[in-house]
């Protein structure tokens, strides 16, 4: 193909064609920028959408089968309220599913059926159709999808009270005090039931050392519901088994000093040493000696004391033969009384610590736990056993255990919500609670109202925080608490049952292959139709949920909008190619004439310029793709740069998650490559036609003189 060899000649920049070279370079750069922008944007939005959908379907399900108003009006549903066999109580879907009898009504001793009720829906054998069981059957018979599961869900509203206990440092004149501050928080919230959803582990948030620390400290406290009692600490025979259980699931590897520092026991000290230290004076007497792990920590420590520098002096602590001396500069050393406490402050990473198993067996309170520690001070290590007092967990390792843990962590695959007799029911809170400072192990209660003979009484269910999850973009996500099904049932049953809001009760159909959602929906609806019960059930895929529909459509339309913009940008970028090629054709008129005289067809000539245009398009797209791949690999850098530029967090982690998705979207890549190459090919058409119209006789004569 001589066309290619000629096109290659044109593509290689030459000094004589400076204008052409510059324009083609600019076009390549512009195209690559556009391609870069589009691929990065689409990859990120695609990833976000995937994340959101993943969270949405993990919290709900890819498909939901919910009862329609016709269900709530049906004989099948209402008959429970007048049947003795059902205790005159309406049943939830779960209860209907568990129930052995379809029709509990006994004409002999139950009251007469009200005339307003619709007739019972009977099957061929004259029995009442079991609507719930048919719905479950419809889900079970679905073919072509792996691991399909049906779980009933219930959603209700409740009131959550949380009772927080936090250690807080107080600073007064020259002393630091630690107090436990109690506070309570109260939220109106939605309550949903937690079924054994393996998908949910994808949305769980990792727990931090602070969480575990709070949980460990909280272990010895009584639930605040027993507030009337004076003694708030549990008895040792309750605390010890809890501690044992706690340490079965967690190994503490590092400890750090609490805000007030920790007093170093004398037996930790080496025989001879010199340390930089701070001395605190009180009434002209040395009250405390403060040791800091490193110079970096010293600054952080000093910032706490910015108000009271006058009582403090820097100097050296000298340890010699069991005696301690304080020395300032080169003045003579002063013997320290043994009652002067040596306060130690570690850096936030803490120091190595290992639980002494014997202390766990004997522990009656959390403070009885002993840790084998290695405390770094200015390059030296102090070794010894330290009690769990004025220290906090800084590092941990989760252990694998067969037993149910106190908490839920993303590392566990098969998960269920824990429930503990004394602690209460574990609940999962959305991310917004974690951001508000709620920690693992905080206890509280869910309230509901139950009518008694004379009044409506508030009932409390004790709960504790067993983990956090990320609700993504579900509008009610920030207030959606997950609890055990029995808790939700209890709360929900206190409300009027004729709640025809389709969201409050239904069946979640879970499976992993989201793209098969429509297929599953079709199979379920056609089964229900075949059984004649389709009017009682509404089958929705995750794209159709009332609360998610708008966002899904918004995402979709945003995507189309940007695609439109992308096409326009690509067109603009590629129009550069047109002008570049027109200049090239003008430049090369003479050569075109020669080639034509030698027998090159007009098709060949257009191919030459088409190839040049497309080659620029391809070069630009490849460069852009490479740039996009590098950008996506380093997206965090870009985000932090943009955030620094803007002065605040660019992408709110509530909306976008902790990390922007960085997976290359192949869909976007194909779209961009296809559209760029197509438009650059189209851009080649105008110049190619122009080139064809070059008359050899004119150009040859013009330059022939």
């Amino acid at each position: 193909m001589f066309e290619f060899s000629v096109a290659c000649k044109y593509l290689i920049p030459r000094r004589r064609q400076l204008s052409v070279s510059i324009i083609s370079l600019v076009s390549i750069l512009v195209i690559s920028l556009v391609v870069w922008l589009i691929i990065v944007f689409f990859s990120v939005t695609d990833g976000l959408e995937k994340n959101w959908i993943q969270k949405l379907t993990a919290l709900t399900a890819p498909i939901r089968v919910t009862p329609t108003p016709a269900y709530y009006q049906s004989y099948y549903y209402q008959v429970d309220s007048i049947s003795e066999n059902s205790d005159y109580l309406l049943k939830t879907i779960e209860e209907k599913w568990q129930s052995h009898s379809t029709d509990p009504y006994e004409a002999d001793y139950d009251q007469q059926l009200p005339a307003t009720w619709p007739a019972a829906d009977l099957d061929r054998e004259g029995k009442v159709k079991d609507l719930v069981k048919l719905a479950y059957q419809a889900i079970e018979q679905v073919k072509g999808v792996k691991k399909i599961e049906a779980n009933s869900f219930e959603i209700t509203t409740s009131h959550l009270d949380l009772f927080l206990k936090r250690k807080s440092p107080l600073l007064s004149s020259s002393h630091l005090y630690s107090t436990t501050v109690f506070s309570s928080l109260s939220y109106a919230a939605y309550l949903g039931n937690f079924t054994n959803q393996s998908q949910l582990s994808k949305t769980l948030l990792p727990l931090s050392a602070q969480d575990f620390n709070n949980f460990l400290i909280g272990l010895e406290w009584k639930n605040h519901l027993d507030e009337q009692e004076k003694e708030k600490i549990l008895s040792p025979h309750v605390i010890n088994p809890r501690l044992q259980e706690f340490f079965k699931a967690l190994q503490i590897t590092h400890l750090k000093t609490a805000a007030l520092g920790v007093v170093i026991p004398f037996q930790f000290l080496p025989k001879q040493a010199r340390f930089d230290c701070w001395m605190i004076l009180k009434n002209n007497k040395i009250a405390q000696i403060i040791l800091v792990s490193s110079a970096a920590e010293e600054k952080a420590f000093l910032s706490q004391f910015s108000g009271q520098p006058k009582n403090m002096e820097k100097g050296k602590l000298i340890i010699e033969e069991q005696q301690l001396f304080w020395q300032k500069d080169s003045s003579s050393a002063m013997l320290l009384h043994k009652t002067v406490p040596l306060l130690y402050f570690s850096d936030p990473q803490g120091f190595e610590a290992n639980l002494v198993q014997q202390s766990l067996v004997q522990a009656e309170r959390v403070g009885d736990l002993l840790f084998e520690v290695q405390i770094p001070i200015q390059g030296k290590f102090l070794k010894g056993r330290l009690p769990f007092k004025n220290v906090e967990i800084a590092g941990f390792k989760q252990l694998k255990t067969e037993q149910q843990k106190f908490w839920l962590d993303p590392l566990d695959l098969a998960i269920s919500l824990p429930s503990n007799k004394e602690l209460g029911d574990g609940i999962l809170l959305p991310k917004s609670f974690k951001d508000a400072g709620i920690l693992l192990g905080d206890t509280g209660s869910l309230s509901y109202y139950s009518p008694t003979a004379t009044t409506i009484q508030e009932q409390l269910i004790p709960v504790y925080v067993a983990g956090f999850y990320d609700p993504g973009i579900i509008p009610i996500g920030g207030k959606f608490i997950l609890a055990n099904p029995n808790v939700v049932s209890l709360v929900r049953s206190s409300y009027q049952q004729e709640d025809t809001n389709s969201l409050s009760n239904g069946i979640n159909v879970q499976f992993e292959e989201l793209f098969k959602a429509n297929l599953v929906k079709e199979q379920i609806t056609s089964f229900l139709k075949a059984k004649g019960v389709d009017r009682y059930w509404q089958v929705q895929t995750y794209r159709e949920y009332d609360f998610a529909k708008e966002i899904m459509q918004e995402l979709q339309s945003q995507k189309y909008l940007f695609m439109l913009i992308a096409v326009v940008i690509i067109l603009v970028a590629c129009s550069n190619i047109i002008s570049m090629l027109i200049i090239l054709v003008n430049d090369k008129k003479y050569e075109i004439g020669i080639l034509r005289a030698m027998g090159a067809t007009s098709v060949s000539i257009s191919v030459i310029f088409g190839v040049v245009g497309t080659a620029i398009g391809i070069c630009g797209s490849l460069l852009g793709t490479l740039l996009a791949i590098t950008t996506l690999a380093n997206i965090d850098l870009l985000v932090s740069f943009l955030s620094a530029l803007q002065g605040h967090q660019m992408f709110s982690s509530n909306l976008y998650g902790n990390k922007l998705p960085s997976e290359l979207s192949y869909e976007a890549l194909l779209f961009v490559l296809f559209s760029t190459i197509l438009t650059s090919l189209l851009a080649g058409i105008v110049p190619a036609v122009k080139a064809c119209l070059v008359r050899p006789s004119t150009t040859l004569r013009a330059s022939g003189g």
Partner: protein
Amino acid sequence: MSLYHKPPSSNYLLKAKSLCKSYYQPLQIELLRSIDLTVLGGESVAIVGRSGEGKSTLLQILGTLEDPCSGSLEIAGTLVCSSNKSFIRNQLIGFVFQSFHLLEDYTALENVLMPAKIARCKIDKQTLEYGLSLLEKVKLADRAHFSTKLLSGGEKQRVALARAFCNRPKIIFADEPSGNLDSHTAELIHQLLLEFVEEKKALVLVTHDWNLANLCTHQFELKQAQLTRIIK
């Protein structure tokens, strides 16, 4: 392709019949009026005339580079029409221009072989050797890999000549082939062109050079849009 390879119905290599050419812009000028010309194999034709008479236009019309306003043209037995022009230019015709018209970004050898490339011949060792032999014929084998930019006028014209020979054409059209050249080079070029005619091929050239014109078998003069044969 069979259409083009049928044996010529006659031994005319060029047969032009009542060719007319007029320009309407800016003034109406009748450049050629009903020109007939036939050239047989082994004949060479020289067209002379004053400048501006339309010699070059006539040559370009004969060489299919320009369309006549009316009239018909047959080359090597093939009637020229718009669909076979490229083929005719590539396979049946060779051009030599006064200002050489070489491709500047290519070497001499690449220029020589460009018609073969356009004819989609594979550029293998054999073809390259053929190209070199053509350059040798014009005594430029040592310049084969020189960029044409570096060649002198005479050398360029010889490269152009070698290029015209590349696809073994039936007719060569030459427009003042030695116009700007020294007498020694001009002579070499004349000699090469006449050698070409000896192989039962045809040469049509436009020149002011009577020495060259006299070497041809026939001489025509273009005057007032008419082509008249000069009989000595």
